[in-house]
């Protein structure tokens, strides 16, 4: 049996489930683990649902939860050897165009992965999700100045990764 607040939480999660999954991938969670971690995000959201102020946007709040869970997971993963599992959804080959788009996105994710997680979180929220910096700082629980500082470093690191990637492409071609 569910209670009304559970229902509201489930509905909110259902609305943002695509965002939760994508955010976890952007934070470096592998496809084989994203399902479990999304479940953890949901459980944490449900636990803290009473604290959530519905007048505020949900995405920064969700991102904060996803970031903490991804950080914990990353620490745990350092102690384990992780190997990819065949994803049930990937058994059917997508059309060429979709495959190409998927590959392109995979390259972006790989580049993002080179940026350390705390700084990547700010970069993703600011440059991909277009969130205001004060909301980013609040969601991550850091001072505003720190958030700007992380963004500056993250952009510099991403630019460096890109330059390296372009050089590699040049060498291959």
């Amino acid at each position, binding site marked *: 049996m569910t209670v009304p607040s559970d229902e509201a939480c489930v509905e909110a999660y259902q609305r943002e489930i*695509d965002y939760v999954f994508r955010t976890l991938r952007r934070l470096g969670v592998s496809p084989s683990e994203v*399902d479990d971690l*999304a479940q953890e995000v949901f459980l944490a959201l449900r*636990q803290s649902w009473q*604290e959530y102020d519905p007048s505020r946007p949900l995405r920064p709040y969700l991102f904060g939860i996803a970031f903490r869970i991804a950080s914990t997971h990353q620490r745990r993963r350092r102690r*384990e050897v992780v190997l990819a*599992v065949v994803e049930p959804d990937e058994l059917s080959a997508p059309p060429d165009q979709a495959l190409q788009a998927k590959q392109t996105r995979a390259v972006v994710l790989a580049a993002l992965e080179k940026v350390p997680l705390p700084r990547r979180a700010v970069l993703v929220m600011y440059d991909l999700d277009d969130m205001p910096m004060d909301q980013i700082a609040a969601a991550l629980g850091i001072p505003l100045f720190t958030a700007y500082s992380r963004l*500056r470093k993250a952009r510099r690191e991403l630019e460096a990764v890109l330059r390296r990637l372009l050089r590699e492409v040049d060498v291959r071609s």
Partner: protein
Amino acid sequence: MIRNVPPLSPEARAFLDREREVPPLSPAARARSMARARAAILASGSARRAFTVSPSSKLRWAIAASVLGVASAAAGASAYRFRDRLAVGPKTPAAISTAAPAPARTSGRSRSSTPSAPVAAAPVPSATDDGITAEPAAVSVADVRVQVPGSALHRASRPVTGEDELRLLRRARAAVAEGDFEGALRPIAEHARRFPDGTLAEEREALRVKSLSTLGQTAEARRAASSFQRRFPNSVLVRVVEQLPTRE
């Protein structure tokens, strides 16, 4: 303050823009995830009902604890007098303390006790106790018992949660990922024994079919696949199970 942050180069901006859109999940993945979320709510609700006691039960527990305490004290005193009469050994403080009554139960909720309700509670520092289904006066069995972390009583009284289920399934998944299909069958069997109708039974059975078929145990894989299709005819994993080789 933003003036201090140099803008992204056009190349980097164009590069990032490829990732700007949030792609929709496949219907199967969405259905699976929502089913798990709803199952977790149901599981935690039933777990809470199973491991909570009503205020009247709480009173009974208190009375029982008091009776037990008085009985222990009386037994301790008798033993002490009896031993005194027989003059067995010197009266050391340690010997006396062994006959002391059990420590009284602490009132209120103990933070060191095992949480009773959350299923796979996520490690979020700001998360608080789940008060959604808990009644204010309800206390869990784990709270009622006097617990020393790490003790046998502590371990024995730890309620079974969805996290235990998930842990077993994770072991199975990790073994499958490493290609250790025999190793995967062990947590699968344990999960089946402990949680025959658990929230993750569907995934467990799919992993069983995959492991058996990869090990070449086709007869057993075929049986497991048929059983899976009968038991979970609407599962999003039916298609995956059907594609696994279960024919010689």
